[in-house]
């Protein structure tokens, strides 16, 4: 039953996309956090996807799932705002905020949710086809 593998393939993609959505959520939640006690503010995170072959045969390219290979931190310098009254301000009166770019994150979120929906639709179609296959000849 080679179509059973579709659930593994699309399921892995949906899981990877939901992990991406999770990262976007934590980036957006931390968009306005300032430098913590360690002196460094929250750094935006980004997932990297990688193909994962899931067929019964390891070289089978027709069942290619997805996994999150790495989560990288954006190393650009955070936003610095002059606010001497802020409790976290440094000696010059600057407060360092996280380097999250809210616009980028929103775009990332929409892309992740669309990809997730695509995979769910694929699974629904595969499910209805399998159910029809079970009723074959009746």
């Amino acid at each position, binding site marked *: *039953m*080679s*179509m059973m*593998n*579709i659930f593994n*393939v*699309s399921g*892995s*993609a949906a899981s990877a*996309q939901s992990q*991406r959505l999770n990262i976007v959520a934590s980036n957006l939640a931390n968009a306005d956090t300032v430098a913590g006690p360690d002196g460094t503010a929250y750094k935006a995170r980004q997932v*990297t*996807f*990688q*193909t994962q072959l899931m067929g019964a045969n390891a*070289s*089978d*390219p*027709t*069942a*290619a*799932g*997805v996994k999150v290979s790495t989560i990288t931190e954006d190393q650009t310098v955070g936003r610095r705002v002059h606010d001497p009254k802020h409790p976290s301000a440094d000696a010059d009166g600057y407060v360092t905020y996280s380097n999250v770019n809210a616009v980028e994150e929103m775009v990332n979120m929409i*892309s992740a949710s669309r*990809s997730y929906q*695509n*995979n769910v639709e*694929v699974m629904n*179609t*595969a499910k209805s*086809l399998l159910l*029809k*296959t079970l009723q*074959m*000849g*009746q």
Partner: protein
Amino acid sequence: MLNRLTDALDFQAQALNLRSERQRLIASNIANADTPGYVAREMNFAQALKNATGAGQTASTLAASQPGHIVDTSATQGGTFSTLMYASASQTNLDRNTVDMDRERASFADNTVKYEATLRFIGSNVKTTLSAITGQ
């Protein structure tokens, strides 16, 4: 006599098998729509069906009659993999991903309809055979 009844079914069964493999292939492409460097694959369905039903095979296979002989698996192993092709990118992408979501969605819908058509063919074949058996 009986194989006359089942030959048509065999052909449809092979077609159904290939349809489900193509469905899985397109699902893999859709799943990897955001994977950097992933190259979309597509199946040459007509060629795959010819290979599966033996209609396109003219070359004879090597026999392995002695224990020392190496079995030639190129013909059988090739199967559907050998009919897979790489899809070229319709619009180039910075991350070298060549999945075109519009094309994949269209292929997926097309394959779904054809899978169901094959199912109907098998169903009506079975019904015809059954009505011949019951004689009504």
